[in-house]
Structures are given as structure tokens and as C-alpha cells.
């Protein structure tokens, strides 16, 4: 009887898990397979603008039906053969790396200061970091346009202090993209860092001090290694989406700010070359597989540590 009840319980659990599971299979996993399929097909003028991969060839004279599958690798060869794509990938990695480092340099002291603050103040201080994240990021990027452009806030400030006399424009450069992306992704860095730093046992630092360790050395040898999971999680949370970023370089970057997200967007919407856009997406995904796996590993470890 108990066994039966347990079996019903297990069955119930199965049904419960099945709902989100099926949703993710249909709307997350299957789409990637479709993208992969289309990346192997040929572009053509049709609706939708790509050739079907699978064709049934009906030969009425012979009375046979043949299945024909056409795989077209030229989209991938184009990616490898054209400097534009390779440069775009390299430049995306560069911009994402700079953004990650900026977020880390700015976010680590913030997370550390909040974790060291009095317990009652930690919540509100953390809230202040997350609050901008709740407002539209498009609008926050837009705010930077007014600051960085010629005759904008920075320019006026510099002219007023006499540091420059010529109009000075930071907007439409890689610098503007770094600033805008660091600004948008900063909370993603501070959150996991704060989570690990807050759990850190302060008695470890006391022990280090008792044994004659100077604060700076204690930080380097105790705090920093122990916060490594937070650093890794935060860095990946910033780095991976940064590589494919589209909006920030489009609004703040110059025409020569080449990023792979922008290339994909243009191939898809401007050139309407869906197969090449798919190939760009698959290549980007392959490129990010290792970082994403590392992220999931760290995420899983952190969840286990929380138990």
C-alpha cells in the first residue's frame, strides 16, 4: 500500500517536472537544433528565405520516391574565410574581456565594503546596487549619450575647467562601449561577489591577524582565494552575454565598433541571409560552450555549498 502511494507520489513528481521540462525542450533546446539545421541550408529568395534541407524526390516514371538531404557547408566556410567575421569575433572577445575586468575592479571593492558593513545596513546598501538594474537599461544607456557626446556633460566639464578647448567627444568610440557595458553589467558582478563574501567566516581573518598577518596579505592569501567562486561566477555572468551584446555597441559605439552580435543582427535583418546569420550564431555558441559549462559547474557547486 505504502509502495503504491509512493509510486503515485513519484508519478505525480514526474508530471510536475514534465511541465517546465517540456517547455524548455520545446522553446530552448529544439530552437538551437533548428538554427543548426538552417545554418547548413542555402539562402534563397523565398518565404522563409532558405532552402529546405530535406526533400522528397518523386520520380513518377520509375514509381520511386527518394529522400534527398542537402547539407551546405559554405556558410561556415564564409565565416572562416572572411576577415570581417574573424575580426568581429576577436573584437567582441576583447570588448567583453575589458568589460569584465572593469566590472571586477569596480564591483569587488563595492561587494567587499557591503559585506563588511553592519548586518542591518547590508540589505539597503545591496538594494542600492540592484535598484538601477530594475529600471530600463536602454534608458540608462541613453543617459550616457547625453554625458559622453560633444557638448555633453563631460565635454562641458572639461571645457569649463579649461582642460580642453576643442569640443571633445567620447561617444561613438570603443571607450563609450566599455563605459556603457560596465555600467549595465555591474550588478551582475556585485551580486555573486557579495553572496560569497558575505558568507566568509570573519574568524579566519582574525586568526590570520593573530598569527601576525598584515591586513593586505590576509586579503591576498585568505579572502581573495575564498571568494574565487564568486569572482568566477560574476565574471562569467558578465563575460558570456557581453560577447553577443548588440544594443550598447549599436547606440554608443562608432561605425567601426565591430561586434559579433551586431554582425548577426545585420546579416539577419539587413541582408536577410538567414543561413549565414544562423552559422554566426552556432559559431558564437560553440565559442561560448566552455565558458557556459564552467558557469554551470560553478553554479552547481554554489548551490551545493548552500545546503
Amino acid at each position, binding site marked *: 500500500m505504502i509502495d503504491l502511494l509512493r509510486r503515485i*507520489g513519484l508519478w*505525480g*513528481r*514526474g508530471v*510536475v*517536472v514534465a511541465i*517546465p*521540462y517540456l*517547455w*524548455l525542450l520545446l*522553446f*530552448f*533546446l529544439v*530552437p538551437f537544433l*533548428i*538554427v543548426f539545421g538552417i545554418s547548413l541550408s542555402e539562402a534563397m529568395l523565398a518565404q522563409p528565405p532558405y532552402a529546405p534541407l530535406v526533400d522528397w524526390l518523386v520520380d513518377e516514371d520509375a514509381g520511386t520516391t527518394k529522400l534527398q538531404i542537402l547539407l551546405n557547408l559554405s556558410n561556415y566556410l564564409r565565416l572562416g574565410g572572411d576577415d570581417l567575421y574573424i575580426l568581429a569575433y576577436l573584437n567582441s572577445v576583447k570588448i567583453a574581456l575589458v568589460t569584465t575586468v572593469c566590472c571586477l575592479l*569596480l564591483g569587488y*571593492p*563595492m561587494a567587499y*565594503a557591503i559585506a563588511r558593513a553592519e548586518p542591518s545596513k547590508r540589505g539597503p546598501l545591496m538594494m*542600492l546596487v540592484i*535598484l538601477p538594474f*530594475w*529600471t*530600463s*537599461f*536602454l*534608458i*540608462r544607456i*541613453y*543617459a*550616457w*549619450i*547625453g*554625458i559622453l557626446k560633444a*557638448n555633453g556633460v563631460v565635454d562641458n566639464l572639461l571645457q569649463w575647467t579649461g582642460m580642453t578647448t576643442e569640443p571633445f567627444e567620447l561617444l561613438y568610440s570603443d571607450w563609450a562601449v566599455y563605459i556603457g557595458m560596465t*555600467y549595465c553589467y*555591474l550588478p551582475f558582478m556585485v551580486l555573486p561577489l557579495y553572496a560569497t563574501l558575505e558568507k566568509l567566516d570573519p574568524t579566519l581573518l582574525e586568526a590570520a591577524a593573530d598569527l601576525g598577518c598584515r591586513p593586505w596579505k590576509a586579503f591576498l592569501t585568505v579572502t581573495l582565494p575564498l571568494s574565487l567562486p564568486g569572482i568566477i561566477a560574476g565574471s*562569467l555572468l558578465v563575460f*558570456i*552575454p557581453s*560577447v*553577443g551584446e*548588440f544594443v550598447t555597441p*549599436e*547606440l554608443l559605439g562608432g561605425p567601426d565598433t565591430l561586434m559579433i*552580435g551586431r554582425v*548577426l543582427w545585420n546579416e*539577419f535583418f539587413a541582408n536577410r541571409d*538567414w543561413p549565414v*546569420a*544562423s552559422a554566426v*550564431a552556432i559559431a*558564437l*555558441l560553440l565559442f561560448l560552450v566552455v565558458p*557556459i559549462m564552467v*558557469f*554551470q559547474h560553478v*553554479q552547481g557547486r554554489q*548551490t551545493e555549498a548552500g545546503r
Partner: protein
Amino acid sequence: MKQMGKLAWALWFGYAFLYVPIALLIFYSFNESRLVTVWGGFSTKWYAELLQNDQLLGAAWLSLKVAAMSATASVVLGTVAGLALARFGRFRGRTLFGGMITAPLVMPEVITGLSLLLLFVALEQAIGWPDGRGMTTITIAHTTFTMAYVAVIIQSRLVSLDESLEEAAMDLGARPAKVFFVITLPIIAPAIVSGWLLAFTLSLDDVVVASFVSGPGSTTLPMVIFSSVKFGISPQINALATLMMVVVATGIFIASLVMARQERQRKRDEQMAVQGG
């Protein structure tokens, strides 16, 4: 002590970096001048113009509807997923499931958008659904990427929660479904509320995925903002940004008050239970 002083400076610098642009935006929304950075006197005319901009208001209404629907759907799916990950132990396909749940957190938006659009196109060819793209497809897309956030919030809340309460209820003969609705759900309610709010904001904020999966005639608010920022700036955006920030700040403030009160109540209840009162 000296170290703390430097740290405090770093913290204030970080806050300045986060808030100065927002403050400037609010300041210039009351600017009479059309030029964004030239002060031409105090005026609320951009707010008045904003309220007459039908295209913008229509897009805002669509965005609110999509955000409300996708946040609700992603809370249901995300809660179940978080529960499965935190409480069901090992089950077949758990690794794949865990991977699919966390991957949308980091997936670049262009990839998510492109893959979902290609799915919708393929589905429409194969089974005739969805018939064209619009509110339904945007809602499905937003649900898919926001449920990851909800699942992570719920999971971390459940992991830090004492399992013995649920076990006690089971021992007293409650069925799993009853345990969930009577014990687990009230305890994780604050996490569900914050998950819903987060999903709502993420949906309201998304421009890339929405651009891929929307059809003609279904333009969301971020898409309108994006194109107006890209093709010449209108000071109305300053006013819109200010309004949105006031609404968000008020909502967060109320939500945090409610959650703080619930938390205090819960602590009191737990203490009473421990003392046997």
C-alpha cells in the same frame, strides 16, 4: 580602519557611477530646451507631449500586457522548476534540465532571439501555429528566458530553507500537493513575489528578443525607445524615463516593505513554534 576608509570611497564612487547618469536624466526631463544638455528653464512640456504620443502609449500598453502575462507564466514554470531542482533529488535527465534552466541566464540575447524566431517560423510552416508573430510569440519568448531567473531565485530560497518543516507535515499525513500549498508556498512567497517582479522588469526591458519575435504591428515600448534613441533623440524620452523610474522605485519600495513585514511575521511565528506557544 584606514582600509575601511578606502573601501568606503570605492563604494561611494560605485554608487556615483550608478546614479549620476540617472539623476542627470531626471534633471533634464524638466528642461525647456530641445537640446538635451543646454538648460533652457524649467518646464513640464515634454511630459505633456509624452501623454499625447499615441504610438508610444500603444507600445507601452502592449509591453505591460506582455510583461504581466510572461511574468505570471514564468513564475508558475520557474517555481515548479526550482522546486524540482531543490527538492526532488536525482531524477532522470536532471543534468540536462539543470543545464537548460541556467543556460538562458547567460545566453547572448541575439542567439535566444534568433533561435526562437526560427522555431516559430518552422512551427508555422509545419503545423500552422503560431499564425504570424505578435503578442503570443513575444510572451512565449519572454517566459522562456525569464523563468530561468525565477527558478534560480526559488531554488536558492528552498536550498537555504529547513526541509524538516515539509518532512514534519508529510509525517503527519499530508499529501505532497497539500504540503506544497500549505507549507512550502507561503514560506517561499517573498521569493515568488521578487521573482515575478524581476521577470516583469526583464520583459519590460527587453529589446533584442522582442525585435526578433515580433511581427508588423506589434511594437513594444523598448523597440520604440530604441529606434527613437538611434534616429535622433527626443526629449520626450527623458520624461518617459523619469516616469518609469518613479513607478519602478515606488513599486520596489512597497514590495520591500511588504516583504520585510512578512519576514518579521515569519520569524515571530517560527519563534512561537520553537517556544511551543
